[in-house]
């Protein structure tokens, strides 16, 4: 009866902001990031990466309520840097890490399955007709990772992306 719709788990409402940043009143150099429509998948990985950063003093996340689809990530750093910079670095290094895993996987695949290259072409045809942006002007640009745009159809996956942050 009170349960929210399932699509609320990943669709951001109109005008909703993806990330809200608030300063922690009690600790210095500490910010609280409230990320909407995300769950442990991204939160745990971000937390792990932030904790490996030498300038981070404190980093933890929680999901305040299972029926409210957001996560709170609290980051405190030394005075040499700011939580926002550290966060940007963490996200960047995460993208690089996953990009690295992906390219290693592709190489391994080519080694094991010589026809893997052909499969890729078949499974992800770049049919231009299907990807007209009827869903709003979200320019998906994981541009550093050529791989991401190679798998076609990425641009027509705007459910949690078609929003004005």
């Amino acid at each position, binding site marked *: 009866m009170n349960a929210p719709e399932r699509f609320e788990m990943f669709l951001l409402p109109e005008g909703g902001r993806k990330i809200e940043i608030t300063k922690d009143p009690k600790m210095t150099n500490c910010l609280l990031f409230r990320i909407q429509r995300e769950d442990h998948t991204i939160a745990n990985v971000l937390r792990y990466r932030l904790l490996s950063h030498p300038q981070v003093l404190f980093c933890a996340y929680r999901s305040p309520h299972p029926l409210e689809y957001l996560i709170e990530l609290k980051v405190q750093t030394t005075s040499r840097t700011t939580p926002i910079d550290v966060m940007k670095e963490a996200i960047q290094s995460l993208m690089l890490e996953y990009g690295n895993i992906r390219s290693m996987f592709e190489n391994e695949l080519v080694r094991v399955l010589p026809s893997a290259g052909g499969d890729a072409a078949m499974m992800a045809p770049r049919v231009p007709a299907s990807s007209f942006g009827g869903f709003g002007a979200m320019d998906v640009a994981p541009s550093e990772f050529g791989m*991401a745009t190679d798998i076609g159809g990425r641009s027509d996956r705007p459910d949690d992306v078609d929003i004005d942050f």
Partner: protein
Amino acid sequence: AQASAATDEQQNKGESQATSIKRLFMFKCDLIQIIGNLSYKSTAMQDLMRELDGLSLVLDNMRIDDNHPFIKEYAVVALKWLLENNKASHDYVRGVENGKLTLDPSIAASGIQVDVDDKGKLSLKKTDEKEDPHNILARTMALEDRNRVVVLKDRVENISGADYPMGFDSEDVPFHLENFRDGLDIKIIRVTPTDIEFDLIGVDASIANALRRILIAEIPTMAIEKVYMINNTGIMQDEVLAHRLGLIPILADPNEFQWKRSGDPPTDQNTIVFKLDVACKAIPNVPESETDPKKKYENSSIYSSHIVWEPKGDQEIRFANSPVRPIHDDILVTKLRPGQVINCELHCEKGIGKDHAKFSPVATASYRLLPDIQILEDITGEDAEFFRGCFPPGVVDVVEENGVRTARVVNPRKDTVSREVLRHKQFDGKVRLTRVRDHFIFNVESTGTIAPEMLVSQALDILIEKCDISKAALERAVKGSEEDE
């Protein structure tokens, strides 16, 4: 000669008048001062000082002495005058610098080794006593143990290993992409049309878990979403039938289709239309004694093969090579009897597993950690045979070593870690079941819509995209707050 005589005199005085501390206070500083002053700009005095061992006396006093405050500073000044323009004295002091250490015997007793390197820097080390092989084994295992999750009879230990990720003991191991790249490894063990087994080594659990979660919940597929019931006179209720139809996996490339929002009209770009139009009839001329409904009636069991694709718009051209159909033909949907009819139109839409499990492209995606069975003490003879029986076949083998049959771990990968060994007292303390913390054995089983290797690639892409979204959102949030200010 004067100076040393003066020193001796003072020392004698000091000994005979031990109680008058006030006079002793700072007397050494005065002596040092005298020595320095006497040597000021006098080469003869400097040489005399050196010969009478005055240099080492001054050097000895380069320290903090509560009874003689600032004696170090006095000694430094005195040394300056003693060495000024006197090469011989310079050489003497230089020779002293790299001298041998005299160690108090108690230092060696406590097991510490003191070393002096070329620059005169002291370093302390724990001495390596002669260790017997058992200790060495224990020590190397202790080092590797940081990387092991220990499986005990009633619990699991050392799960997180450190207070924070990638930290061991008190070492700080900040993340560097180069180091990571060296440690990271991916090995694909087996690829079949339906599943893939691969190893992901050298990553943290959170990364492997994120990959698993994405595989299960966030890769889009096509599945029947809307069922328009025209006629259903069968025994199964409309909604139950619709539910079952939704769970049928559909072979259609989700990348070819667009997302359909709740207000959007169905188009050939975002919807696939199927028709299910069946009626059950009695087969004429069947003997009365026949009981098998399949023989008596036509269409008594409705299978997924009865679902017919109706191409709309340009779908016929787009999917000329790979027509859209349910992956399996033999999924039993419902049963009918003569006179009962099902007539419905099925609309297929794009969705992700988070929305409904029918959209999940994997039968399952899971990982386990590589087991590591450590034999602490050799297990021999009959015990070895019994030991082998405690594990799945192929894990442990009994080999002849020096004429004794001992058990050796051959292929820990096959082990299911059932902990059968820990149940038997005879192996107490001889075996240790552990798992390697950063070695993930993934097993991804696809339902058939997407090839399993493509699933993993797509999952990694989606993860990268998630990070990208967060990054963009972060920038906007920062810009927004800056504008507010």
